């Protein structure tokens, strides 16, 4: 690489810099070449001493450069900066036949499990509705009182129902959480098994 190639490359890499800043930096490098030549060096030698223009540009862009790749300023042509993250090793895929059978197998499993999940949700919903009804029973009893004769026993029963309702409401919270978690696990299990990375 000669001086012009070096400066052209640097110029393109520094396009993010404000023009006057870029120009000043390029002038610095140009002067460096001039002084180097005065000392009897060839353009190639100077380019070698200066280092990789890509890395210099990163240094110059500083915080503007978003990659977290470490800055490179030690010049050794045999050493290249590594990519910031090594590529994930290719996952072993299962064959087409195996994949087909996995899908068929999962179809049957889901045929049973999906309604079961639905049943769990319905159960949680039923408990919640029961809790609401229990807690609301004094209100309902008051409405009943408007139209019918209400015995004292009903009031006692209503108070008892409120107690039950509060307990059910607490239980329904845990129940909903349990059902939600198991549904999430069920979906992710499905997803992973279908993709074959489980």
């Amino acid at each position: 690489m000669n001086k012009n190639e070096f400066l052209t490359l640097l110029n393109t890499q520094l396009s993010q810099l404000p023009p006057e800043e870029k120009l000043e930096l390029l002038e610095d490098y140009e002067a460096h070449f001039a002084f180097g030549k005065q000392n009897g060096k060839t353009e190639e030698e100077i380019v070698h001493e200066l280092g990789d223009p890509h890395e210099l540009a990163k240094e110059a862009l500083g915080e503007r450069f978003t990659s977290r790749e470490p800055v490179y300023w030690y010049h050794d042509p045999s050493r290249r900066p590594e990519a910031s993250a090594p590529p994930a090793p290719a996952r072993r895929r299962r064959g087409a036949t195996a994949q087909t059978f996995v899908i068929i197998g999962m179809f049957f499993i889901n045929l049973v499990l999906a309604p079961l999940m639905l049943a769990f949700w319905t159960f949680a919903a039923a408990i919640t509705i029961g809790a609401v009804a229990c807690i609301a029973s004094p209100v309902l009893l008051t409405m009943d009182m408007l139209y019918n004769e209400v015995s004292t026993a009903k009031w006692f029963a209503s108070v008892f129902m409120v107690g039950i309702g509060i307990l059910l409401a607490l239980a329904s919270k845990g129940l909903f959480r349990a059902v939600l978690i198991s549904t999430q696990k069920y979906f992710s299990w499905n997803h992973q098994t279908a993709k074959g990375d489980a």
Partner: protein
Amino acid sequence: MDISIQFKKGALELCVLVLIHERDRYGYELAQSVSEHIEVAEGALYPLLRRLVNEGYCTTYLQESTGGPPRKYYKLTESGKAHMKKLITEWKQFVYSVSRLIERGPIL
């Protein structure tokens, strides 16, 4: 990524400040002086010098040279001197701590 690159990167700023503190120097001269002591990609010096100027640690002035472009000299400011002293203290403390840790270990 060689870890020594990171060491040198951290040390370069300090070396440059000390060299400019000795006497005003221009870019090419600095590159040569630094290379005498540590192996660096000399090009990295210019972005560093720009930063030092932007942070107010250095000022620059031009001086004509015979048969070449004018030399851009770098001069350490007062805040640059203070910064250098702070870096030297930190550096010594750091080197001392690390050496003490290394010498305590059974490796060497």
